[in-house]
Structure formats: structure tokens, C-alpha cells
């Protein structure tokens, strides 16, 4: 590419041929005001506020810096009297339309406009077209466009109606220099304000993620919705973004597998009387945890949906646990995390905290002590399962509050406790596809949690050799227990590896070629493909290594030609005879 020499405000510089004056000036730190320009969009050149004076030989021209391609020998003045005169008038024109927009008013002050000669209009939109262009060129949704012409030109959706093509990405509001576009939340979407998932389509899954790299959420990424955008690609200097990467299925040969598929939070929508999803200030345990996190959407501030600090908070224990209608088991972790929440709320906001519990199950090391500490911190404990959360006040104290109705079983009275925020201590459930995982790995899963080989003697191995389980996929447990179990599972795998050899099944089946008639009935029965047919000898053969010794083939053989070792017909007959010794005699 050709290099050219030019002069900007007296500074001699070099640049690539046809680089825009704005780009060159910005590199030199010369400020040129822009309104309709955005680095990710093609220059549009319509607001004209970036007008500069250009001299090439004798010719003097006023051009827009954002899209004027510099050529060799050109001299640019970015702040000459003529430039200032022109910009001033342009600002007065903008004020005639938008007289109360801060960015325009600030610029106007810079150019010495005290009161614009054409008056002040009440509009917000300076028709810079950034929103229209970002919607079509970047997002690809093509929702916004210009309508009418001349002085009546306006930005609108087609026919001014709500467009179904709008994906609510907010890009238009983001680029708008005057704040003329606002994103309105649909009432039904209020819960999404504090999402559990990522706040943006590109995010690092969590602070401690390994590898610590951002990922793109295919569901919310604009590129995967419209095929456009790729803004991330443009801003990434090392060009690390690749939208073409696909999920691939990798086949990895392993000798052992540890399942740690975790749990699913109980969905409190099943308990409709708690109003989760209806009252915005009723949060699940994980929602509160996210809000409370320093890296969360509020930066760790505990606040209500309207941004206010709560003065009272209720925590309802055993939501979805120890409940005949949902899960009968105890989720083991809720009591303690509820206490942690109570402590932090007290510490951060000083709010009154009420715990509604059935029993306090503070079984671990130091847990009971923590409970006692909270009792001293003036956290209130009310024994009784909350019956209902309502926003229907019966008196003035309850107005605008959430009221928890509960039978206080210690004093034997039904109480109404008005609070600002309710946290549901939601329990743990098996993941939705637990049964499918169990089937894939040939293990059993009782109530959705995987079954260990032996509850006491083999708590991390399963009925299938080489498959181990750890963590909440095996049953609800807290972090120390999970870590312990994970360590045990890893050790179990390690011991297999370090031994260097494995024991194969001794109880396999074998074919007696003398008796095999070659009928091939057994051939299709073996799910492990251990049975094949010897075309030459016209008999069936069984592969000893593949065979796991289930004996299904032996049971099916009409010639009794298959011998299921250790479980032969004779052995089993004898066993049957044995168990019936007393009637046979």
C-alpha cells in the first residue's frame, strides 16, 4: 500500500493512502467531534459535525473527516475559523431539532453558542442513523429504517409498529449518541433482569474457570441469530474469535470414567404459593448467591428490583426438600447456606433476617457453632414451614411488602411476617438426564441419583467396572463431602492405573464346537458383539475378552452347546435342587 505525506493542523505526518482524515487525526491525538460515527460501522458522513478544511494545491474544500480519504500533499485544518463557523451553525441546526440533548448542548457550549438562533426543539433524535446502520449492518435484524424525507425524516420500525424481527439486542440504544432510544422491559421478562446465566453473549463462565477463557453463548449471540454482527471478531486484536467452531464429538479411549454430573436446583415454581416468578423480590438460593457475588450483576450489592436496599429479608428453608409433594429427602446443604446468607445480609445491610425452618440441621464441623453465632447476631429463627407468600396487605405495616404466612410451632400461633425480600432455600435435585447418563454408563440410578456399588464399602464405584461417581450426582452433599468423594474416586482410578493391569471377567461363556449346530440363534443376542460365526467351520465362536458372562446366549442355545462358565446348567440345576432339598427328599 502506498504511503502518503500530509499535514494536519501544521503537523506533518505519514499515513496509508486513502486513510480517512479522522483516523489519522485520532492517531495524532487531535480531537475532531463526531456524532454519526462509530468505529465498527462504515463512515456515513451525515451529521457533518466532523467537517474540516482541506487544502490541496489552490483548492480549498470543506469535507467530513470521517469519510474523506487523505491523499498525498493534502493539508488539513481541523479548527480553522471557517471550520468553527460551519460547526457552530450545524450545532445550531441540531439544536433547532434537539434543543435539550446533553451531548449537543455540551458541544454547543464548546463552540460558544449561548442561545441558538433557530430556537430549541424538543426532539431527541438527530437522525445520525447509527441505530439504523447498527441494526442492519452489524446486527442484521433490519428492524429500524428511515421514513419520510427532508425535514419530516424519522427513524422508525416498519409502519411504526412493534417488529417481530427485533431481537431486543439493545445495540441501537447502545450506539445512540443522544440517548433517544430506550430499551423497555416487558413486564413478563422482569425476572431476566437478574439472570443466572451470562449477562452478555460473551463471558468467562465463572471466575475460577479453567481454562480462564471467554466463551460465546450460541443462544444469545447475535451472529448465530442473524448471521451478521461479528463485532467481537473486529475488536479482537489477535483474531482469536472463530464463529465457525462447531461442537465436535471426540472419541477418547479411556480405562475409567468418573461421573460428576452434579445436580439441578429445585424449581420453586412447583410450589406456587411461594410466588416465585410472580413477585420479583422472591429469589431462589442461586439467584441470591449470584447477586451477592462480587462479580455478579450488582457487584455484590444486595438490593431489591427497584434498586432499594431491603430492610427485612425472609429465608424459607426446605424449599423442595423434606416435602411430601416434591422431594422427600433432605438436601443437606440448604440449612447452612441459608445461615451464610443470613449472616451476610445482616453484615451488608443490617436488615432484619427471619429464618423459617423445620429443623436446623447443622451437622458438620463447626456448623453448630455458626448457628449459635447467628442466634447471637440477632437473626430471627421461626420454626415452621412457611405456608404462603403474598403481597396482599391486611394493615399499613404490610403495605408494599411481601408477607410470609407461617405457623410458629414454638409458640403455636399463625403469624404474618412482612418482609422486603424472600430467599427460598431451594434444594438439590438430580439432573434432568440422570437416567440417560446411567443407561449410557450401565449403572443404576435409584431416585435419580446414581447408585454406588455399596453404600458403605464401595461408595464411589458403581456396579460397572471402571465407572466411578463423585459429588452431588450420587446424592445431595456439601462441598467438603464432594471434595472428599472426588478425591476418593480419583484415587480409585489411580489405583487401577498404577496397577498396570486389570482383571478380566472369568465367568465368560464358551461354545462347544462339537455340539453347536450352527443355527446362529445366539449370534444376534449378544449386545457386546462377542459372538461371531466361523463360516469355515460353520460353528459359532465367542470372544473371551469381549464376553462379560451374562449368559443370555447360553439360555437361548437349543443345543445346550454354550457353556456359561461358573453358571453352567448343571451348576444351576444343582443349586435349584439344593435350595429345594427339603421338598425333594
Amino acid at each position, binding site marked *: 500500500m502506498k504511503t502518503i505525506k500530509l499535514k494536519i493542523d501544521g503537523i506533518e505526518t505519514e499515513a496509508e493512502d486513502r486513510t480517512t482524515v479522522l483516523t489519522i487525526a485520532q492517531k495524532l491525538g487531535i480531537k475532531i467531534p463526531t456524532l454519526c460515527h462509530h468505529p465498527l460501522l462504515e*463512515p456515513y*458522513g*451525515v*451529521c*457533518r*459535525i466532523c*467537517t474540516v478544511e482541506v487544502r490541496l494545491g489552490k483548492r480549498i474544500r*470543506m*469535507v*467530513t473527516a470521517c*469519510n*474523506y*480519504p487523505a491523499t498525498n500533499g493534502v493539508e488539513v485544518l481541523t479548527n480553522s475559523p*471557517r471550520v468553527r*463557523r*460551519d460547526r457552530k*451553525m*450545524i450545532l445550531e*441546526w*441540531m439544536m*433547532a*431539532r434537539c434543543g435539550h440533548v446533553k451531548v449537543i448542548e455540551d458541544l454547543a457550549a464548546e463552540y460558544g453558542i449561548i442561545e441558538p*438562533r*433557530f430556537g430549541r426543539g424538543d426532539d431527541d433524535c*438527530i*437522525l445520525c*442513523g447509527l441505530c439504523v446502520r447498527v441494526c442492519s449492518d452489524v446486527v442484521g435484524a433490519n428492524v429500524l*429504517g*428511515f421514513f*419520510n*424525507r*427532508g*425535514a*419530516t*425524516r424519522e427513524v422508525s420500525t416498519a409502519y411504526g409498529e412493534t417488529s417481530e424481527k427485533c431481537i431486543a439486542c439493545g445495540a441501537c440504544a447502545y450506539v445512540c449518541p443522544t440517548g433517544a432510544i430506550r430499551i423497555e422491559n416487558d413486564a413478563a421478562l422482569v425476572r431476566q433482569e437478574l439472570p443466572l446465566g451470562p449477562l452478555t453473549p460473551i463471558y468467562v463462565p465463572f471466575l475460577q474457570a479453567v481454562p480462564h477463557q471467554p466463551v460465546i453463548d450460541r443462544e444469545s449471540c447475535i451472529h448465530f441469530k442473524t448471521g451478521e454482527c461479528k463485532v467481537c471478531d473486529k475488536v479482537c486484536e489477535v483474531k482469536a474469535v472463530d464463529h465457525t467452531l462447531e461442537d465436535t464429538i471426540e472419541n477418547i479411549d479411556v480405562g475409567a470414567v468418573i461421573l460428576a454430573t452434579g445436580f439441578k436446583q429445585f424449581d420453586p415454581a412447583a410450589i406456587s404459593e411461594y410466588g416465585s416468578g410472580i413477585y420479583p423480590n422472591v429469589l431462589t438460593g442461586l439467584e441470591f448467591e449470584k447477586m451477592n457475588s462480587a462479580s455478579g450483576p450488582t457487584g455484590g450489592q444486595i438490593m431489591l428490583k427497584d434498586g432499594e436496599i431491603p430492610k427485612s429479608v425472609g429465608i424459607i428453608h426446605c424449599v423442595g426438600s423434606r416435602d411430601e409433594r416434591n422431594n422427600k429427602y433432605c438436601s443437606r446443604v440448604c440449612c447452612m447456606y441459608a445461615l451464610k446468607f443470613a449472616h451476610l445480609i445482616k453484615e451488608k445491610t443490617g436488615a432484619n433476617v427471619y429464618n423459617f425452618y423445620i429443623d436446623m440441621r447443622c451437622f458438620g464441623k463447626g456448623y453448630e457453632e455458626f448457628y449459635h453465632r447467628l442466634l447471637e447476631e440477632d437473626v430471627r429463627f421461626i420454626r415452621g414451614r412457611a405456608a404462603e407468600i403474598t403481597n396482599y396487605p391486611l394493615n399499613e405495616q404490610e403495605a408494599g411488602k411481601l408477607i410470609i404466612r407461617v405457623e410458629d410451632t414454638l409458640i403455636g400461633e399463625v403469624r404474618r411476617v412482612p418482609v422486603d425480600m424472600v430467599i427460598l432455600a431451594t434444594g438439590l435435585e438430580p439432573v434432568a438426564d440422570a437416567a440417560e447418563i446411567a443407561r449410557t454408563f450401565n449403572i443404576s440410578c435409584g431416585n435419580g441419583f446414581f447408585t454406588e456399588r455399596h453404600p458403605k464399602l464401595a461408595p464411589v464405584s458403581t456396579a460397572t467396572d471402571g465407572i466411578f461417581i463423585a459429588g452431588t450426582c450420587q446424592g445431595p452433599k456439601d462441598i467438603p463431602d464432594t471434595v472428599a468423594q472426588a478425591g476418593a474416586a480419583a484415587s480409585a482410578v489411580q489405583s487401577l492405573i498404577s496397577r498396570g493391569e486389570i482383571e478380566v471377567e472369568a465367568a465368560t461363556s464358551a461354545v462347544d464346537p462339537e455340539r453347536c449346530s450352527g443355527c446362529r440363534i445366539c449370534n444376534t443376542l449378544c449386545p457386546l458383539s462377542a459372538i461371531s460365526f466361523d463360516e469355515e467351520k460353520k460353528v459359532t465362536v465367542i470372544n473371551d475378552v469381549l464376553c462379560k458372562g451374562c449368559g443370555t446366549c447360553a439360555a437361548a442355545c437349543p443345543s445346550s452347546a454354550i457353556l456359561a462358565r461358573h453358571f453352567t446348567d448343571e451348576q444351576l440345576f444343582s443349586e435349584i435342587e439344593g435350595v429345594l432339598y427339603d421338598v425333594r427328599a
Partner: protein
Amino acid sequence: MAFRTHVLVCAGTGCVSGNSYATATALENEIFKKGLAQEVQVIRTGCQGFCAEGPIVIVQPDGVFYCGVMAKDAPFVVEEHLVKGRHVKKLMYTPPEEKSPIPALKEIPFFAKQKLVVLRNRGAIDPEKIDDYIAADGYTAIEKALFHMTPDQIISEIKRSGLRGRGGGGFPAGVKWETCRHAAQHRGVEPVVVCNADEGDPGAFMDRSIIESDPHSVIEGMIIGARAIGCKEGFIYIRREYPIARERLLKALEQARDYGLLGTDILGSGMDFDIEIVQGAGAFVCGESTALMASLEGNAGEPRAKYIHTVEYGYKNRPTNLNNVETWANVPLIIHRGAHWFSSMGTGNVAENPWNGSSGTKVFSMVGKINNTGLIEVPMGITLREIIFDIGGGIPSGRQFKAVQTGGPSGGCLPESHLDMPVDFDSLTEAGSMMGSGGMIVMDDQTCMVDIARYFIAFLTEESCGKCTPCREGLRTSLEILDRITQGEGQPSDVDLLQEISEIMQDCCLCALGTSAPNPVLSTLRYFKEEYDAHINNRQCPGGVCKELIEYIIDPEKCDGCHACVRGCAVAAIMGEVKKTHALDKAKCVKCGACIEACKREAIRKIPRSYAA
């Protein structure tokens, strides 16, 4: 079959709206009745240009010119002229202030001073017959360009002819072609040629007339251009308001394809080229090249910055050569008769550098306060006085000439002092107006120049696309100021403010519509500043146009109480008994002027409004 006589009936839009088709049919019927069908042929031709006098009929080879021929005149004309061989005097043209009619076309002053190059075939051939065009040396230039000239030779010929763009800018066509050809070769992208027939200026109809009277000349010019630049594709962007022109172009294209002049392997030369017609959707700004191309692409017709020219990145980012209808129509003749022939007409020595002058002819549409409204073609360098007074026949009703506006709505108004100025690209620009595409509006002393500026600014405000701030807001604010001046509420600072707005619009607007839009204001401020002052300082309108600043009076001396004005008044503002002097109620009067039209004794006048002290 040979006919002894041809009767040429004008079928241009002007005469057609005067019902010339009925005249033609009546003539045909009458000729048939008289048994002359084997001897006399009626031909419907393109516009003759003398639209003021339509419907026009010319009898050839006698060269007799009849005007205002209605269907009812047909029997008489046929009987007298075609059967008996006597010219029909009462239908001949009689110039104003003369008594005897002029029988021959070429002796009529309107035609005598004209130089027909682009319009050479107007009224002479049937525009819907390709054979007529070929008989008039049509498509001979194609043969020369395809088989005897290289593309470089064609470009060099056009450059040496000094042909400059007739659409308004006056950019040398040859230079444009060369740039386009080089850009295409350099980038390896196929270029396109486009014909701009989006003639949006109010009162202008040059391009329409050229297409309507000689569509093949435009097509031939485009084929030559395509050959020189190396295009396979061409477009004619025509405004939707021109249905007859489009119809004729479609027919012409079909005929040209049938004759192997368009399509693949043109005349066996191996060149492929075809033309598609695209209709505009009624936006003035689409005459601007980048807006036109955006519209061609199917996008909203809005201009973009032209720092990178359309000859490099135009239609679909391909090198695009855009020329106006008249420019294209000039091309075949230049190739056919040579650059020297063309450059011998007009001003300056253009053989070395096309910027040195203005060669060839220019077509103007002449409207306004002028006797001979119509379409004319004159050599470059002719003076405004010759055009207006010799060809145009001067100002009607013996009024005084005040100004002529050239170059369409964004042109400027030139005063009497400039009447002896030669008409060419550079002189007009220097005087603060422009050539534009050739609209010419003549104004008499009853015109208010502030109102004229206001009218054009209002038109442009309507037509501004609104994309860039200075054009959208500058025109709007200019219009507000002009409105208040014409209503007598102007401030002394308004003149300076208008001047400033105009200068900044020239500096800052995105496209040529915007940068040229202040011309009506600037030229009237330059030549008629006293009228602004009269409006602002004295609250008076010297032209007697601005309604807020005038009032109507009935002169009791002249009024004979005929009651005609009373019947004419729509708001019953005039009272009085028959044969007694009438009186006018100023409170009711809406100053529509109907009473003045109705009064036979010129008893009603407009006077400056009187203000209570």
C-alpha cells in the same frame, strides 16, 4: 411505397395533451375519404419544440407549418392543402405584433435561430420506427465505432470533441469514460453504463422530448459508450412520470434487439451489450448520481459521500459511467461526423482540453413569462438575449423582463444586466447560476424575487432526502426565514442570516442537491437585494406578489359596474349594484386575483398594503 406528401403531426406530450392524436386520426380519415391514402401519409412525430402553439402539423416536402390544428380543422386542411394545393393561412403561425402569417417552418424566428443537433430528427421521423432512424443516418456511428475504431480511439474522439455532461455538472464525458474504463481494467470488475433520465426539475422537459422524438439516438450513444468503456450491461433510469417516453424506449430497445444492435454478438462484432429500463419512484434527489445508483440497486434513493467517485465505485460497487440523456444523444453524431465538426460549434478551444470551453449545442426548455414557450436547441455561446427575445419572442403583454432562472430549482436568477452574457457552462457558474440540465424560466416585472427564492427553497425542502444535517435543517430554516420575510415579518438580520446559512450549506452539504440548493437565495440576494430590503424594511412587495404585503383596490374612475368581478369572486368580497361603481371588502378578500382576470377594464389593481400608523 412512396408517398408524394407526408403530414407530420406532433405527438410530443405537449401536443398530445392538446389532443393531437385526435387531429392525426381525423386527418387520416379525411385523407382516406378523399382517396388520397395511397399518396399522403400521416406520421406521428416527436416533439417539435414549439409547444406554445400546439397541436402542430407540418406538411412536407412543402415545409408548411400549421399550428393549433384541431380535429375539426382536418377536413378543411385536407381539402385545401392536400387536394387543392392551397396553403391554409388561418392556421399558419403569426408572430405577435405582426399581421401576416409565416408559412414556412424555417422562416419562423422560433426555429430560425436554433441549431438542431440532438433534436435533428425531431418532427422528422416517426420515433417508433427504427427504419426511420436508420434512414436518417441512424446507427451508422455504431458501425464505425465497432469495426473501425478501438475503444481508446472512441474515447479520444469524445475528449477532443469537448463534449461536457449535459446533466448539469459539465464534466467532460471523454475524461469520465476514460476513468471508468481504467478503473474497470485496474480492478478487473465489469463496468456499467447508465443513462440518467430522471429529469426532475420543475418546468424542464428536454430529456423527455429527446427520448420521445428520437429514442434510438440515446440507445446508439449508449452502445458506443459501452464499446468504449467495455460494458456488457446498461441501464436507463427514467422517472415514472414519463410513461410515453418509457413506452417509446421499450419499443426502440425491442427493435434494436431485433436488428441485432443489442444483445449478444452485436452485428457480428463479438460485443455483447444490452440495456434495461429502470423506473424511478418520484424523488428529485435521484437525479444525483449516488442517489440514482442507490435507487438502481433497489435501496432508498439517498446520496452518499462522493469522495470516491461513482466511476470507480458506483452501481453495486462496479465502475459506473453515468451520463444524461442529452449527452448520450450527442455521442452518435460526434462519432459519425467527427470531433472537429462538434467542437466547431460553441465556445473556446476544446480540442486540447475539454475544460477550455463549451462545445456543441444545448437544449433548453423555455417556460415562464415568455411568448414562445417550448423546447429549443441552440449553439453554446449564444446570448440569453437572443434566446429570450429572438427565439422566445420576448415577454408577453408588453411587460418588462426582470430575471431568467437557469439550471432548475437549484440554479440562480440572472437579472437584465446579464442578458448579453454568453450561455455556456463556465459563464453561468461564474454569474452564480448554472447550466443545470437546461431548464429556463423567464420572469417579468410582476414577479417577486423573494417569493421566487421562497418557491424554489420550498420545492427543495420537499425534495431534500433529509440524510445530512445542513441540507435538512438548512433548507427548513431558510424556508422559515423566507416565509416570514414574504409575510412582512422579516428582521433586519435575516438577510445576513440567509447569507450565512447559504454559505455553510455550500460548504457542508453531503451531495450536490444540498450544496447547490442555496443558489436561488444567493443569486437573488446578489442581484435583487433591494427587493429583500423592501420586504423587510418597508413591508412591501415590489412585484406585488406576496399576499400579506398587498391589497386590491377598485379604481372608481375605471369601474363601469359590469358585475363581472362580482361573479368571479369566490368569497363574495365585492359588492355593488350593476352599472354602479363596485366596492371591495378588504377583510373578506383572499387576494386570489380572480377579479383582475374577470375585469375587462383593468379597474382592479394590486397596491402596496397600507399600514395603520
